[in-house]
């Protein structure tokens, strides 16, 4: 359904070019979940935004690659086509922070109705769209949805706001749902509820889910496949079972060695020595080599190719 090949999104900053996404490739089938895992700054959010054609303005630009959804090439479409036919309609995003993702001066009902009206799915009248919006709020299990549709975001709790954000995202039944750390701002108990909800929605609509997170515990629970990102590249991708049982890339091994228990939300990875690289001055060769226990002279000089092992991929000289 979704095929991303060699996607490159660079940020053209005053201090230099930041290769936020630097040759990312993956596939995702309908009804399946792909986890995109990595530290902050590894390019996972930028990958999600690039699929929507929304790299941050004015510095960000998609400089290469292809993204095809149900056979349609998305890279190179003009703004209007993207807004009318792709965003919200075919691909939608559930963003990180429910506290800031809703417009504070419009009712929740109006905000859920907005994509329905924008994409012409609400019939002719504003009332029909409002009615559908209430149904969507019921769909994401907002209690007393009919009354609550008239309330404003500040009258909702964090978990309820995230449900509203989810309702906005799924209102037009997109084929691909991108969830960007949808739970990291929530309490653990609410996290579990929300993940159940997202999985249920996915099952009902048969959408593909791209699940962006740094939380290996949640990823293990919901993802069929997992892709690990480091410094703008996918260093390893495999089925969840394979990845957790037999991680191939030293970075993945490090991540799993420092694995947080479910509910622990440390952002810092303790057992990998060193710090994430300066994205404007990436190390030569393999970007991970200064932190890698297996680094050789070759890793310092030459970037490893991505090697396929069945359906899995890994980019490391140990496996080349």
């Amino acid at each position: 359904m979704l095929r991303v090949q060699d996607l490159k999104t660079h940020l053209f900053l005053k201090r230099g070019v930041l290769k936020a996404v630097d040759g990312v490739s993956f596939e995702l089938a309908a009804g399946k979940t792909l986890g995109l895992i990595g530290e902050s700054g590894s390019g996972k959010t930028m990958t999600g935004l690039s699929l929507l054609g929304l790299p941050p303005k004015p510095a960000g630009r998609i400089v290469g690659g292809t993204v095809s959804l149900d056979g349609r090439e998305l890279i190179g479409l003009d703004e209007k086509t993207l807004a009318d036919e792709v965003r919200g309609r075919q691909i939608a995003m559930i963003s990180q922070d429910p506290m800031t993702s809703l417009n504070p001066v419009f009712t929740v009902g109006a905000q859920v109705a907005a994509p329905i009206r924008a994409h012409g799915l609400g019939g002719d009248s504003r009332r029909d769209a409002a009615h559908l919006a209430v149904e969507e709020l019921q769909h994401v299990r907002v209690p007393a949805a009919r009354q609550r549709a008239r309330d404003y975001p500040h009258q909702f709790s964090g978990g309820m706001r995230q449900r509203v954000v989810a309702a906005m995202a799924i209102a037009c039944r997109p084929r691909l749902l991108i969830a960007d750390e949808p739970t990291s701002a929530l309490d653990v108990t609410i996290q579990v509820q929300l993940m159940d909800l997202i999985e249920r929605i996915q099952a009902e609509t048969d959408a593909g889910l791209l699940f962006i997170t740094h939380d290996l515990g949640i990823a293990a629970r919901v993802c069929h496949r997992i892709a690990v990102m480091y410094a703008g590249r996918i260093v390893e991708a495999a089925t969840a079972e394979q990845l957790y049982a037999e991680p191939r890339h030293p970075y993945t091994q490090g991540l799993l060695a420092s694995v947080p228990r479910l509910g622990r939300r440390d952002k810092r990875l303790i057992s990998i020595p060193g710090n994430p690289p300066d994205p404007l001055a990436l190390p030569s060769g393999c970007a991970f080599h200064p932190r890698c226990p297996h680094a050789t002279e070759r890793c310092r000089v030459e970037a490893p190719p991505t090697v396929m092992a069945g359906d899995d991929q890994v980019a490391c000289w140990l496996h080349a």
Partner: protein
Amino acid sequence: MRAYFVKRVLQGVVAIVGALLIVFVAQRLSGDPVALMLPMDAGEAEFAAMREALGLDKPLPAQFGIFMVNAVQGDFGDSYQWQAPAMTLLLERLPATLELALAGLVFALLLAVPLGVVSSVHRGGLVDRAAKVFAMLGQAVPGFWIGLLLILFVAVELQWLPAFGRGGLSNLVLPAIALGWYPVAAMTRTLRSSMLDILDSDYVRMERAIGLPERWIVWRYALRNAMVPLVTMIGVYFANMLGGAFVIEVVFAWPGIGRAVVDAVFARDFPVVQAGVVLAALVFVAVNLIVDLSYGLIDPRIRHAKA
């Protein structure tokens, strides 16, 4: 919201009492009114009689009490020039000043809102840079000079619009432009910067991610959020226009309050000046109250806040 409103009303009352106190003290400091009112050759007995008639022989606190009781009823005495109640004279002219200030405000907003929004959307673009220059000119050039230029070119040379006086819409255009020009600059910049913040916010990113048309995002969803700081400015500038329109009123021979007060100052017509000061204070308080209420209309968080 109700408690908040009551608090603001009480603050307004304090401000008006303060204005009254200043008016009262200024009046006592400005010399002996009896000397002005009586002929040069009046004797000591006539002075005493006049003081008693005016209540000026009473102690100051008592005088202030009388003054306050009268002031609350809108009685600031009769105009020396026109032999009519001072406040009545001014209230008759209030509609003309309101009309001019409202027209000036509408002109300012008609320019500032589109300019501010377009400047923020096309940051660094042609409109943004042109608006910057245009706005700077507006703030650097005094309103009366713009008024004179407008009279010279639009009224005298081109004869498109009348040069002075109050009447139909055509009389209103030139003074409204002269009055409204100044705040355009500040309003445009304020709106531009709050729009830039909001266009960069998470919820605008979300609105883009679900494919809302950019037109809706900018002019509806973002603009309403960006209006809050602009409304504050509207309040300040509108009150200034009401109280400070006298220069424009003089230039365009506009029969408003400002001009009446200026005339009264030259004629040493004290009751009218006092009534003018108090009326200006009242208008300021009223406008600020309206501004406070309109925050609640724009932003539900303020509406629902517990004061």
